[in-house]
Structures are given as C-alpha cells and as structure tokens.
C-alpha cells in the first residue's frame, strides 16, 4: 500500500484502494518472470464482482513465475487527488504503478466503460493509442464480451482475446516469457500472438470504406495473420480452472456472495440477446463437480449466500438434483441459496420452496414484451398464462411484490404492444386478488423497461434503434397509461441507451470520437451522475462521425459488418434466418427440443445438447 494515508482519509470508501484483502495473492516481484495486472474499467465494487476475473486471477497466479494483480477505475474523488499529486494508477497487491507491469489485461464488459479504459491508461501514465506505445510500456490486452466487436476502441488495445479466456491467457503469457528471454520486441510478439487461435491484433487489419461510410473491405495486412478470428471456448467445464480461494473484499460489493457457475451458453434463442449467442454451445458442469466446488468455495470464503449462475438457471438439465444436494448442507452452514434468471415457464412451487430462505418479498421475471405477438417476434417463448401461473405460485408462497422486465423499442413494436405491458401488469394484480390464500398485504408490480439496443451477433444485429424522440414518446405514452397506483413504472435513460447502441455496432471511425469524449473529461458513462449526453454529441461532431449512422440506421443484410471478421461459431446465415422468422412472427424451438443448425456445434464441447459435436 503506497497511497499516502492522508489521501485515503479524504476519499469516499478508502477500502476500495488499500488492497490487503483476505485471499489476495502476494509474490516476490523479483522472483517472477511476468507481472500481469487485470484492469477493470469501473469501480472496485463492480470489478470485484466479476466472475471471469476471479477465474483468470486464479489461472495466472497458479503459475509460480507469473504474478497477477488487480486494478480498478478510481472514483472521481480519488482521481482528483491522483491528478493533483501526480500519483500514477497502481495495482492493488503491490501498490506498484501499472506502468511498470509487463501486461495489462482490461476486462471490457459493457460499452459505457470505454471512456474509463482511456482514463485508466492516462492515469497510469501510458500512451493511449497502441501505435504510440513501444516496448517500454506494458502490452495492453482486452478480453470480455465487448471484444466480439472491439472496433470502436480497437486503436487503444494491442491485442484482444476473443471468447473464453482461461486457456488463451496462459498461452499469451507463455509466449510473452519466450519473447522476453530473447529480448522483447512488441511487433514480433504481436505477430506471433496473432497466430494463436482466439487472438485478434487490431493493428494487423485494415478496413476500407465505401462512399456511404459502410465497410468495403476488412483484411489482414500480413499473409500469416488469419482472415477470420475464431472464438475460443473451454470444451470441458468440469475440468476448467476453478478458483479455490477468492479475494474477499472488505466493503460490500455488487455480488457479495459465492457465485457458482453451473453452465455456459443458453438453449433459448432470444433474438435480441447477445450473451445467449456468443456463449454457445451449451456446456454444463456435472452436479457432482458443482457440489464439490460449492463446498470448497464455502470453506474458502465464509460467505453466507450462494447464487447459481448461468444465463437461465432453470434450464440446467439437473437443476432439481443440484438444488436438493446443495440444500442438504447449505442450511446447516447458514448459507442461503439464490437462483437468479428464473424463467416463468419453469418457476414451480417446489423450486420456490427451495429458495424460500431468500430474504426478500419480491420476485423478478422478464417477459421482455407486452403481447404474445411481440414475444413471438423476439422468440421469448413465454406465454401470459405462464407468467400468471408463476405469479400465483409466488403469491401463494407469501410474496406480494413482482418485478417485470421489458424492452421498449423492439423491432416491429407498436403502441398496442405498449398497452400490452400495462395490461400484463394489471393481470398480475388481478391474479393476486384471485389467489385464495394470498398474503394479507397489498400487492405491487414494478415495471422496468430498458431500451432495445441492437447488438452484434444476434438476429437483430441489422435493426435500427428507435430514434430518440420516438423512444421518449413511447416511454411517455406508457407512463400516461398506467393509472393503478399499485403499478410502478421505471425506465432506462434513452440517451444512455443511444450511446450504448452507437458503440455496440460501431466501427473504427469511432476511435476518434472516443478520444474526443476522453478529452472532454467523460468517464463513468454508466453512472447517471457522470453521464453527459450533450458532451457526447459534441465529441461525435468533433470527430466527424454521425451517431445515427450506427444507432439509428438499419444495416443492409448484404453489408459487410464491422464484426464480420470474428467467428463465434454461430453463423451469419443462422442470424439472417432467425431475423426473417422474427418478421414472420414465427418462433424457434429451444436447443433441447431440436437443433436449429446455428453452427456452434462445430466448436465441440462436453455435456452439451448439440448433436454431432466435434470432440
């Protein structure tokens, strides 16, 4: 800990910055070959909750010759102190400046943290652009969901890991060691790294554009660099690295509990959902392995809450067996079990009784759209009857509050669909009063709507986002419709969603806009108190890019997309097929019922529901 105490005394939540937590890994820096720092471009509380980073921290630190540390975006009060006193951004474990490290690995989880990446580099005293960094600076890597379309921020990274990082990160560090031994040259390292499957070196590719601003071509500049970059996956999750010791924060973090990852991928095929596509194919852990891991984590952490993590937990093939076996000992150990991401069609009395130890009076479901027509368009495959049945189960079990998540501005959405949201909420209230053994308290429904954001690698990747006035009009419309005081309506800021949409489908021209935004002092865009839409518009203007081109334009089906050089296994043909089915209001069955030929089975994987898996 090298931050002067007088600064720690001045800032909010100083324990964000001290390090020294239980479970942190300390090594002798002179005895290791590679110093790596995982950088999370948001606050400590959010970064510490990230499961991927916990796994990778464990993976790298299990090598004796590598020391992996952590760094987070300092909150604005700390940033002010650092700038005033010229304190460079440091790593938590050693307190050493990030500039002294060999490799910095940024975890890029959402578009709204891009400005924080730039700000962290600046605070570390590292040139922002990859081309301005020579061997005297750390190699800057990126991983995480945003790397599936990293183009808008590609100029700042030296290389990106596409897909699941457990294996590729070891290969990259191994390669770094080899290069370090023979005298490290950045270009030579990147050239060799680009040959590793799942590694994308943005500088080795050159885009050309058509007169209308769309991509004309996107090609590697060297012959030995792959034209398409394949996503990496861990084939057998049972054998995938699993952290046996976690860093335990002193202060409360967002996910302050044991997160037990049950499986990856999703059998559903919601047409707006990127996670459901990029994590394919589905790969499960066995119940035995999960129970064993749960015990190890409980012993190692002393947490009293455990959540089963996946994209849709009730779709785990052995969910009953798993919860039964866990409950055999969690009660005795004072650990409460929670199941997030429950689907209404799988929510049963038995399941609720199992998780009844959860100390909350509310349940959350995500119908996503207000009418059956629109739910068919997005392939949610949930019916109103399912929702009402699930609510009845909840009410009978003593719950009175239901939270419902929706999206507004979905493709083909009409005002009728918005009415549907209101009617669905009213039906839930009615259902409460029609439940004979309902609790004696008054019911409540909270509607939360997000704005639809077209994301790469989804059937809706070609769709335009509703323009801002229309989004606001729809929010206002729904707000005006809701008269029942038992129904509360919250909605996301359309301006934030628009910026997110710009960067989600952006190309390299946006790197300049990002630089402009950074120069205007923008950071923490995901935080209401720091988001500044007007400054963003000025940044786009200064960089000469039109945000509508990315957010509010329907991309052509024959257009070369900025992310077409990334291969996630699921094919573009599948997405097109699904898009057309959406417009025909036709649903697609889940992966357990039938194989829809998305292409992800090419990647292989153990305990999957895909037919014809490559072993």
């Amino acid at each position, binding site marked *: *800990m090298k931050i002067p*105490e*007088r*600064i*720690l*005394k*001045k800032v909010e939540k*100083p*324990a964000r910055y*001290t*390090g*020294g*937590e*239980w479970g942190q890994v300390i090594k002798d820096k002179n005895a290791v070959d590679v110093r790596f720092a995982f950088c999370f471009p948001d606050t400590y509380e959010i970064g510490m909750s990230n499961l991927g980073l916990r796994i990778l921290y464990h993976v790298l630190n299990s090598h004796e010759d590598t020391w992996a540390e952590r760094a987070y975006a300092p909150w604005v009060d700390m940033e002010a102190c650092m700038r005033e006193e010229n304190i460079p951004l440091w790593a938590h474990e050693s307190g050493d400046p990030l500039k002294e490290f060999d490799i910095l690995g940024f975890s890029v989880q959402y578009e709204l943290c891009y400005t924080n990446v730039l700000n962290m580099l600046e605070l570390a005293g590292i040139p922002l652009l990859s081309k301005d960094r020579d061997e005297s600076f750390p190699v800057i890597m990126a991983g995480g969901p945003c790397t599936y379309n990293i183009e808008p921020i590609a100029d700042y990274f030296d290389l990106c890991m596409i897909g699941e990082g457990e294996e590729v990160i070891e290969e990259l560090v191994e390669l770094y060691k080899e290069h370090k031994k023979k005298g490290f040259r950045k270009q030579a390292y990147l050239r060799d790294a680009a040959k590793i499957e799942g590694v994308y070196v943005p500088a080795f590719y050159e885009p050309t554009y058509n007169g209308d601003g769309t991509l004309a071509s996107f090609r590697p500049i060297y012959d030995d660099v792959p034209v398409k970059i394949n996503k990496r996956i861990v084939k057998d999750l049972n054998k995938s690295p699993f952290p046996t010791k976690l860093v*335990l924060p*002193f*202060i*409360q973090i967002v996910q302050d509990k044991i997160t037990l990852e049950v499986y990856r991928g999703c059998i559903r095929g919601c047409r707006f959902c990127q996670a459901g596509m990029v994590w394919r194919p589905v790969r499960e852990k066995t119940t035995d392995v999960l129970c064993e891991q749960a015990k190890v984590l*409980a*012993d*190692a*952490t*002393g*947490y*009293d809450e455990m959540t089963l993590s996946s994209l849709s937990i009730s779709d785990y093939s052995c969910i009953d067996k798993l919860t039964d076996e866990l409950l055999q000992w969690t009660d005795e*150990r*004072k650990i409460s079990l929670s199941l997030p991401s429950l689907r209404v069609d799988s929510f049963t009395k038995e399941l609720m009784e199992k998780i009844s130890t959860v*100390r909350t009076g509310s349940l959350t479901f995500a119908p996503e759209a207000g009418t059956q027509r629109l739910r068919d368009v997005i392939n949610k495959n949930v019916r109103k009857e399912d929702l009402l049945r699930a609510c009845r189960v909840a009410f009978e079990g003593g719950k009175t509050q239901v939270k419902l998540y929706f999206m507004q501005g979905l493709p083909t959405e009409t005002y009728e669909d918005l009415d549907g949201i209101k009617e669905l909420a009213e039906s839930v209230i009615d259902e409460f009063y029609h439940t004979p053994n309902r609790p004696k308290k008054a019911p409540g429904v909270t509607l939360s709507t997000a704005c639809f954001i077209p994301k790469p690698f989804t059937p809706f990747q070609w769709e335009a986002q509703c323009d801002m006035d229309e989004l606001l009009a729809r929010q206002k419309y729904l707000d005006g419709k809701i008269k029942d005081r038992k129904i509360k309506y919250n909605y996301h800021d359309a301006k934030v969603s628009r910026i997110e949409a710009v960067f989600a489908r952006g190309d390299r021209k946006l790197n300049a806009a990002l630089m402009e935004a950074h120069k205007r002092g923008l950071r923490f865009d995901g935080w209401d108190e720091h988001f500044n839409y007007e400054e963003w518009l000025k940044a786009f203007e200064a960089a000469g890019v039109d945000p509508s081109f990315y957010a509010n334009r329907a991309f052509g089906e024959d257009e070369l997309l900025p992310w077409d050089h990334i291969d996630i296994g699921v094919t573009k043909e599948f997405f097109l097929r699904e898009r057309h089915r959406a417009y025909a209001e036709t649903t697609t069955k889940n992966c357990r019922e039938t194989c829809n030929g998305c292409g992800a089975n090419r990647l292989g994987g153990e305990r999957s529901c895909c037919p014809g898996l490559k072993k």
Partner: protein
Amino acid sequence: MLSGPQKIRVKFSKTGSLKFISHLDLNRTVKSAFLRSKLPIWYTKGFNPHPKTVFSVPLSVGTASLCEFMDFKITEAVPGEVICATLNSVFPDGLRAIEAYEPTSKFHDIGWADYEIRLEIANAETYVERVKSALNEPIVIEKTTKIGTRTLDVSPFVKVLSVTEENGELALRVKLCCDDANFVNPKYVIEFLTGKLGVPGERDDYSVCRTAVYREDGVTPFK
C-alpha cells in the same frame, strides 16, 4: 459440550489496510472469518441466523488500534489460545487476535483510552514546547453531534502523556475520555492544535493509533 452458550471476548488489533475499514465492514469481515474458521460460534435462532458480535468503542475510519475488543458466544468450550490461533489463520493481515477469554466486565466500564498521534510537520522539534503549553490551556473545540454543533472546553477530558519529536514527526501521546457523555475524538485534539498553532501543511498529514483502553478511573487497564 457447555450447558449454554459461553461468552468469549477477543482482544484484537486493527492496523494496516484494516484501519480504513468502517465499523460495519469490520463486522462483515469478522462474520465471514467466523464461517471460515469453523469455530463453534453460536448463532441467533430464527430466519436470519447470525453470530451476535458486539464490539467495544467504535474507531473512526483511518484510526489504527492495538486494543479493540469483541464479544461473541461459542457453543463448545475452546481454549483461548486455540481461538486466537484459529482466528488469526483466517483473518486478513492487519486484523490480529491477541487474547481470548471469558469476560468479567462490560464495555460500558470503559472510561479512557490512550492514543498516539503523529503529525508530519517540517521542523517538528520546534513545535514540541508550543504544543505542550497549548494543551495546558483550555482546549476549546467545536463538537458536532446529532443535535448540532457546540463549542466547549474538553480539557478535563484530555490528559497529555508526552509530546516529543520522533523521526521528524511530532509524536503526541494523550489519554482521552471515551465514556458516552464526554467522548473526545482524537481528531478534535488535532484540529485544536493545527488551528491554534497554525501548523502548516495538510491537516490530513497525521496518523492516529489507539494504544490502550482503561476503566473509568483511567488507570486500571480494561480487560
């Protein structure tokens, strides 16, 4: 097996990173350490079982201590040394169990505490005499509580033990009252001094450590 849960008091220190942990977060840290330790901690019955942990006089965030106390209950007899060793094996650095025993006193019996205050000032030695004489006069401070801000003289509740220059720092050892009514936060003494003496530099350039805790007489160590 004990006939009922037995009360245990652990004396511990809170230094290093742990200085910056609030009272609430200390509670969480201890709670998870208890679960890791697998000691036979007694939990409250009911819907939300938790170990009933009670801490002595709370510390301000940023203040270190060599003499904190916490009480909890155990369901099986465990020797004090074993409790300390087990807790230390699961405590983060900066949190150290020193002693564990069955308590015979109440936290309410605590009346005074010693603090070591270190101020980083240029030419610290030139301040020694001035500080000594300043602390001999009425120590008038602004005390802010829930009911508002009062101006009062806390000199009856401040006993100066020593004022010296050590390694270029001004080291001040004081005994301050810490009963509920007349609690003197060490920061009041620092504010009084920096205001009175016009000490240059940042007011945040100081460190505070609670070094001992006494009963109401200010002489008998609290145990």
